[in-house]
């Protein structure tokens, strides 16, 4: 039983960044823009979030306050960076995949250059611990308390709150309805007076915010508040894309997909805790490959009937009917 708690407690801080970034991808694609730049945006957000932590860690601010403000900083940074994608793919009608690739390449180089020139480092190392041993009261709830409110990070709770908000925004609000319309049939949206460009800016910007936050949460929950231009976010942005597809562009499914991968990943590194796996004596490398291979398998099985937003990837051009 301990092992199960352990696996889940360790899965959550890894699953939450994936969840948030995949939700970001979902908002972007639901508006019609393929956001392959998630990896870069994550790193951008993580960098500025960590930079903020670095600047204030000496002050008397409590770690959770710093985390919350850092989250805002990361979200805003992500938003700003995502504007580069919006501008190119919405206004300039550029190829979204190429622009995304450029943005992914740009940011590690930026971080390395900046960090090397100013910190003589590959990134930012902070010294604030955001870990929460247990959250008062909530942690006492049987089972749930131990799973979600002990040995955790604030990021986990925020992640699930954002998930709930995402569901409401996407399905219950005017904005969500319009956003989905733009990703499916922008001409229809346009013909009822919805500004497709604006909605797409909104979709990409939300993805920027979420990816920025996701990046920062990755730094907090996985990298102890540190960011390196070298290891970046270890392909989490790309994994998030796969998670989003696996989740069929739907928030709750995305949550399950994200947790599935996070679980595999955690499992892969905790093999020694599970005697029957450990006794197999399989090379660790295979376990490292497992999440990627599982992604491929799942995609292979689901891709045939996967249903992406119809208009995604196609620049919107009013004059084309």
């Amino acid at each position, binding site marked *: 039983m301990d092992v199960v708690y352990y696996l889940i407690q360790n899965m959550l801080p890894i699953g939450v960044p994936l969840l948030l970034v995949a939700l970001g991808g979902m908002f972007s694609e639901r508006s019609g823009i393929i956001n392959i730049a998630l990896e870069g945006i994550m790193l951008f957000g993580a960098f500025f979030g960590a930079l903020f932590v670095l600047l204030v860690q000496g002050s008397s601010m409590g770690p959770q306050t710093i985390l919350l403000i850092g989250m805002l900083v990361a979200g805003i940074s992500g938003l700003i960076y995502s504007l580069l994608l919006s501008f*190119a793919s919405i206004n300039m009608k550029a190829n979204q995949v190429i622009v995304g690739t450029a943005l992914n390449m*740009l940011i590690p180089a930026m971080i390395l*250059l900046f960090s090397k*020139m100013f910190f003589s480092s590959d990134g930012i190392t902070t010294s604030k611990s955001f870990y929460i041993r247990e959250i008062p009261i909530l942690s006492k709830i049987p089972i749930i308390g131990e799973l979600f409110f002990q040995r955790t990070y604030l990021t986990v709770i925020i992640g699930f709150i954002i998930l709930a908000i995402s569901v409401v925004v996407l399905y219950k609000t005017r904005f969500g309805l319009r956003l989905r319309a733009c990703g499916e049939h922008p001409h229809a949206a346009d013909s009822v007076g919805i500004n497709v460009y604006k909605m797409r800016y909104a979709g990409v910007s939300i993805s920027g915010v979420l990816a920025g936050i996701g990046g920062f949460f990755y730094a907090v929950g996985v990298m102890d508040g540190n960011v390196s231009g070298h290891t970046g976010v270890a392909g989490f942005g790309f994994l998030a894309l796969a998670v989003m597809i696996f989740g069929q562009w739907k928030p709750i499914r995305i949550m399950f997909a994200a947790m599935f991968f996070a679980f595999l990943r955690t499992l892969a590194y905790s093999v020694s805790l599970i005697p029957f796996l450990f006794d197999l004596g399989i090379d660790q490398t295979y376990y490292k490959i497992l999440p*990627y291979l599982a992604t491929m398998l799942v995609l292979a099985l689901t891709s045939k009937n996967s249903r992406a937003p119809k208009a995604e990837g196609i620049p919107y051009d009013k004059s084309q009917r």
Partner: protein
Amino acid sequence: MQGNNNADKLKFNIKNITSHSGFKSLGAALMAIFLGLVVGFIIMLVARPENAIAGFRFVLLGGMGRLGDVLYFATPILMTGLAVGFAFKMGLFNIGASGQYTMGMFFALYVAFNWDLPGSTHWIVAIFAGFVGGMIWGFIPGIFKALLNVNEVITSIMFNYIGMYLVDMWIQNNGVMYNSSLTRTRYIASGVQIPALGIAGSNVNLGIIIAIIIAVILYIVLEKTTFGYELKATGHNKHAAEYAGMQGKRNIILTMTIAGGMAGIGGAFAILAPSAIAGSSMTYEPINIIAANGFTGIAVALLGNAHPLGTILSATFISYIQRGGTLTSLVGFKPEIIDIVVAVIIYFSAFAMIMNSAIARFIKARLGKDDEKPLQETDSENEENTVEDEEVIKKETEKEAE
């Protein structure tokens, strides 16, 4: 009337030049390069104003004194550039050049260490092995795309990781290849190293010549053969290709396989390069890092407009500014400045075409101002050109749709 005629001529000429597609992509590339360099300079200016000029001079001219190295470092990225570009022609985005490159390198290494062949052929066989290794790693995303309808971007990213982990494991578990106390592969025999071209101070070798020959062959395949015809047709319009009885699935797999092979050869070229130090060689360190040359290949391909011959130029160019970028260390900058410049170039090249035609239209509008006349009377050729202008934009936007 006389004046009008003159203006007409001028207008006509400009249209003619600007609407020529070769000019357009070159113009777009130059534009993107220009903007990339400007951004690089601005960053240098902000970071270290007192050295910015000196640093920028290195970026621009530093490669001059190191032409051998320029070609040497251009070799693998030319191959990965071809890998990305070739697939691009078919409308496939091969972001997996990295994994294919690593796989090719491993196969080449394997042959280098484990096969006993005479020096005169050993390196050739090893390059060929690299080709095979890369092909396998291109074949897989091809299969996933063609038979299972999984987006090749996702597959190739996943297989970048899988390939990297596998190769690192295989190498570490192989005592013949791996020197654990140096955490890298052992030196390969000089017989497996590609013969150097003998340019002093650089390891530039036959690889660059072979790479250029391969680029030319790819050009011929694309432009002169039925396979190239099918491939490009599929890239432009896969429905029409299917309608014409082309075997789309087979072609997807074939294209990805060949593309992978190109990247694989790139990996072989990199690892089989000769060393200026006697008894030494290139080595590979299995530390779970995705090969950067694969990603640089994307930049090379995009800048070269996926055209094999253009790719030769773009690979050389990127290598050139990288060499200059290294020298900026001497005035307090870091070579990453070049990665930034390259990323910015790609960013702009994604829509430089559109930007350019907007500018061209603006120029035309300026020049054509005083001879405005009812449109229905414009001669047909002029009209054709205007339409074509639009077409370029449309073509681009349609590509994105895929």
